[in-house]
Structures are given as C-alpha cells and as structure tokens.
C-alpha cells in the first residue's frame, strides 16, 4: 500500500481529537481505536484466514485480565514498567492463550471450527465466573491507570493522553498486521482460506497455518484488551462474553471483510451506531441486528465494498448518473425506517407496562395504545419496503448502464 495512505492514517489519528472536540467525542474516539485493533485482529482470522470465530473475545478479555493484575502490581511498586508498554504484556497473554486454545480449536476447520470457538468462549466465560479469586467474579477487577512512574511527565490520567496512547498503539498494530499480510505465512493463510485442499498439495500443513495465524491474531487481540483495561480501568466477565465476540464480528463484517482497512471503518461505524442509538431507544440491538442481517444479504462485502465500488464511477466522471437512483434509495430507506421505528417503538412501549403507553417519537407525543399509530407505521413500513424494491431496481439498472464504461 502506498506510503501516502499511511501518512493520511497517521494524520487522521493525530488530528481527530481536534476535529471532534468534547469529552464524549474523545471517549468514542478512544473506543474506536481500541475496537479497531480488535477488529483487525479478528479479520486476520476471518478475512485473511477464512476462519469464522464466535469466541475471539477470549483472547482480548484474558489479555485484559492479565493487564489489570499487572497494573495493580505496578501500583504496589512490584516492578517498574511504563504504562505505555503494558499492552505488550496483554499481547503476550493473548498469544499464550492463543497457543493453549488454538491447539484445540484449529484441529477442525470451517463450520466446526466456528462451533468449537463458541464452545471455548462459553467455557472461558463460565470459568471466569467460577474463579472469583483471579477474575473478580461478576463485578470484575478495577484498577487505577495513573499509578507507576510518569513517563515524560505523562501519567495518563487525562482522557486525551489515553487517546493518544491508544492511537499510537493502533497505528503500530495496523502497520504490523499489514506487514504480516506480506509474509509467507500471511500469504499461505490466504491460500488456505481459498482452497485448503490445494494448499496441502503444495506442501503445507493447513492446520499449522491456521494455528499460527490464530496465535498471531490472539496477540493483537490481547493488545486491544489491555488498552481497553487501561481506558476503562475495570475488567469484568463481560470482556470475555459472547456479546463481545459478537460485537467484534459485527464491527468487522459491517466494515468489510475483504479489505484490510474494512474493520477500521467498521469499528467507527459500530461505535457510532451504539453510541447514537443505545441512549435513544431500548430497541437498539434489534436495529443493529436488522442492519447486520440486511448487510449479509445485500452487501456482504461491507460498507467498504460499497464505497470502493463508487470509486471507479467517480474516476470516470459518471457519478452524476447515480445521484438520482441513490437519492431514491435513500428516500425509500427513510420511509421504511419511519414505519419500522414506529412499529418497534410502539411494541416496546406496549410491552413495557411500567411506563404507560405514552411515548415521544421524533419530537411528537404519541400514544402507543391508539390504533392510529399502528396503522400509520405499518402502512409506512409496507410502503417503504415496496419503494425499496423499486429503488433497488432503479439503482441496478443505472449501474448496468454504466458497467461497460
């Protein structure tokens, strides 16, 4: 990849807090950076190795647990390591567990591997609850990141310093993971993904390839876990939960599995989605699920693939032809969304009898018990779906016109 891309990436990382000011924005940016490392590590398995895992949070979570204990040791003056190097420890922990669990999980490939990864994830989660001594039970273990010697006057108390720590590690990990894709192991992981049988016939033990790819991926997952620990100053069972594993899967997929930077894009979108919606509606996980399912069916290459598909058209100067169909699509989406939101929020309001049937939607005071809102919402949704169908046809016919160009 061209040097300019990396320069731009570094610049974006450095400048982000100035473009998006405020403590809330800073929190989001830090979370995006941490998730980006996690998602990139996940894509080492899925996008590059063809290995779908439902339990990747095991490596980041266990890395986080090791880090939190180390941080607490630091606080007692047991040894002197500057805080910025702790993610390395998290990485090593991730790597160690990668070796331990990877040995078992990579004995099978494909769908079986996916199921085994789920089983290992559940097993680790159950263990975390079973051994409160090391894992702190449900409440988890908390820590203080400002302990230890300040490094060049930085004690990493302020959120801005934490952001730049995360950003630096994010950049370093991106470089490292990209470099790995240009090595013999990285290339053979691709080969095993595409055609494991043929890979065997050119001299490679595919199980070893997958095992090594998993171990390396677990290292970066551990780094991400350590950064998460430093940021939130608490590590709990949720860090190794199926929810976390599902979250990184969603983020990676939404961004775009076939592209190296896809998971980074996906992390940004995912954090924004959750941040924007989880405060506004109780049904945010439902919307996220719908969004994900729609992407699997209609845009399996993720948002990155959608964006990249436009580049050719833009270069040919013909993007103007797509404005109308896209506008139609956006309008249809909006219509369908209005209907969907109306239905979902009304159902929620009705089933949650503790709060009465009144609700505020888009600034309007509505009563969920009234049939009026049901009718309108269902009609809007139906109309929206029909409109989406038509818009999709419009878009694909316009694309077909442009294809020879």
């Amino acid at each position, binding site marked *: 990849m061209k040097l300019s891309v990396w320069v731009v990436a570094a610049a974006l990382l450095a400048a982000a807090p100035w473009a998006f000011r405020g403590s809330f924005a800073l929190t989001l940016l830090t979370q995006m950076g941490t998730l980006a490392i996690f998602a990139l590590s996940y894509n080492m398995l899925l996008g590059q190795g063809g290995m779908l895992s439902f339990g990747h949070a095991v490596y980041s979570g266990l890395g986080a647990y090791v880090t939190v204990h180390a941080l607490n040791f630091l606080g007692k003056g047991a040894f002197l390591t500057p805080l910025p190097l702790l993610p390395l420890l998290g990485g090593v922990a991730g790597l160690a567990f990668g070796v331990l669990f990877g040995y*078992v999980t990579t004995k099978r490939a494909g*769908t079986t591997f996916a199921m085994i990864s*789920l089983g290992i994830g559940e097993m680790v989660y159950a263990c975390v609850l079973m051994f409160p001594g090391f894992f702190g039970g449900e409440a988890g273990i908390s820590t203080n990141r400002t302990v230890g010697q300040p490094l060049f006057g930085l004690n990493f108390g302020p959120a801005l310093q934490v952001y730049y720590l995360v950003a630096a590690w994010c950049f370093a990990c991106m470089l490292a993971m990209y470099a790995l894709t240009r090595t013999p192991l990285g290339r053979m992981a691709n080969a095993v993904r595409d055609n494991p049988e043929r890979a065997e016939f050119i001299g490679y033990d595919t199980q070893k390839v997958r095992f090594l790819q998993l171990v390396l991926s677990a290292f970066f997952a551990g780094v991400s876990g350590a950064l998460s620990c430093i940021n939130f100053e608490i590590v709990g069972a949720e860090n190794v939960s*199926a929810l976390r594993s599902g979250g990184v899967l969603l983020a990676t997929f939404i961004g775009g599995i076939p592209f190296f930077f896809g998971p980074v894009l996906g992390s940004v979108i995912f954090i924004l989605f959750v941040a924007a919606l989880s405060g506004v509606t109780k049904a945010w996980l*439902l919307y996220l699920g719908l969004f994900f399912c729609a992407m699997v069916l209609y845009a399996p290459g993720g948002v990155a693939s959608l964006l990249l598909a436009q580049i050719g058209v833009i270069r040919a100067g013909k993007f103007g032809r797509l404005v109308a169909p896209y506008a139609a699509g956006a309008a249809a989406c909006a219509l369908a969304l209005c209907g969907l939101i109306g239905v979902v929020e009304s159902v929620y309001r009705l089933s949650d009898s503790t709060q009465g049937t009144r609700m505020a939607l888009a600034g309007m005071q509505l009563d969920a018990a009234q049939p009026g809102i049901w009718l309108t919402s269902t009609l809007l949704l139906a109309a929206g779906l029909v409109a989406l169908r038509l818009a999709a046809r419009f878009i694909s016919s316009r694309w077909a016109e442009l294809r020879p160009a």
Partner: protein
Amino acid sequence: MDFLLVLVLNSISYGLLLFMLASGLTIVFSLMGVLNFAHASFYMLGAYFAYQISRWIGFWPALVLAPLAVGALGMAVERFALRRAHKYGHVAELLFTFGLAYLIEEATHLIWGRSAVPYRVPPDLDGPLFSIMGTQYPMYRGFMMLVAVAMLVSIWLVLKKTRIGLVIQAALTHPETVEALGHNVPRVFMLVFGGGVALAGLAGVIGGNAFITEPGMAAALGPIVFVIVVVGGMGSLGGAFIASLLIGFIQTFAVSLDWGLFGYNISQVAPVLPYLVMVLMLIVRPKGLMGTREG
C-alpha cells in the same frame, strides 16, 4: 437409590430434549450445508408461542400449533432470506443465522419483555407419575419423554420409509449428488429447514414449561447443542443421540451431586463440564464419536 433413579430419569428426559434439538440441527446441516446458529432461538420461539397460545386457547392446541407456527416462520426465513445468503457461501449463511439469533432474541424481548414468562405445566399433566420409596416422579417429565420418543420414531419413519426421507439420508453423506438429482430441491430445502426448526419449536413447547421460559434460554442452550453436534460428529444422527444422552447425564448429575473435586464442589463446576467434554473429544478424536463429514 430412589434419588439415583430420579436423576437417571431426569437425565434421560433432558438428553432426549437435547437430541430433539441436535437432530433438527444435524438434518438441516447435512442436507443444506448450513449450520443454523439460530436453531436454539426457534426452540425459544416454540416455548413463547406455546405460552401465548396456551393463554388464549390451551396447552393441547398449543402443542400442535406452536411447532407449526415456528415451522412456518422457518420456511419463510429460508425462502426469503437464507436462499439469498446461500449464493455467497456457507460463511454468509452462518453469519445470517447468527444475526437472526440476535433478531429473534431482541424481538422476543420486545414483545414479551425481559423477564421470564409464567409458562406453566398444564394442570392435567401436573402430578406424580409414580411414587418410589416416598419420592414422587412428576408426570410431566414422563410426558416429555413420551413426546420426544414419539417424535424420534416419526423422524426415523420419515427417513426410512418416505421418498423425501431417502433424499435426506443420501444428503447426509453425499450432498452434491442430491443437488444433481433434479428433485424440486429448493422446495425440499424449504420444507427441511421448516421441519428442522419445527422440531426445535416442539422441543421448546415441552421444555419451556418444564424448565424456564425466558429470553436468555436460547443463549444458554445453543452452545450446548453445538457441543453435542461436535462431540457426536458432524452429520451423524447416531452420534448426536449418544452425545445428547451423555451431556444430559453429565449436566443433570453434576448439578445435583455434592461431591468435591480439587477443592471445588462439582455443582459449581457443572457449567463448564460439557465444554471440557468437547475439548477432550477434540484432542482424542477430532472427528467426533461417529463423524462422517467435514464441517
């Protein structure tokens, strides 16, 4: 002694319930190559549908209607969504069913709330089946075993005696050949998928009131069913049967016994045991007990 008998009977009934789930999953996977991550979610829907229908009409109609409703939903999912994912490959199908599991769980939250619903054993079945040395064995458990066995016998009959059963048997080991057969394969797929999840739904109908009906039940049972399929061997119904009973026994006994093991009470360690079995199987015999196909 009677305590042991109760445990054994409970293990068998729980194991049979697990097999109802595992068999549906295995048949769908064997025929269509798609692992339905949302399989346990359809189990949950079966329980919730049965709860709702029993409130309106009664338990016995629910026993028939709920699985049918779940099956119909499954067919719709196959027809309008899964089929689309199919052309992007197995990973896409698995990802879609993964998203579907989320959706079903959230929709259940949405409609029925986050806490358990009072889906109870019907009064005519709520009593002792027999008494042994002062301990009573609940009738409902016996009913569960009866339904499970009846269902399994029907599956066996369908597989061995009908034409569609022949097709499914062939697909268990040679899916590509089935595709070349020229039957109305899409319709077979739709029916099989619907049938497979209807089985899960039926398990939910009879299991939901014996155990608990709450939105977390799919997430609790789903991984166990996957463990069973891995331990039994992908694509093997016989292996799934043995593994279901094995896990049924392990989980039932572990929760009820009060033995110490390495300083831990076995009932504390119980949640982890099925996964340990899976890890052990993977180390010793990665193909599973009777595995015939690669995943």
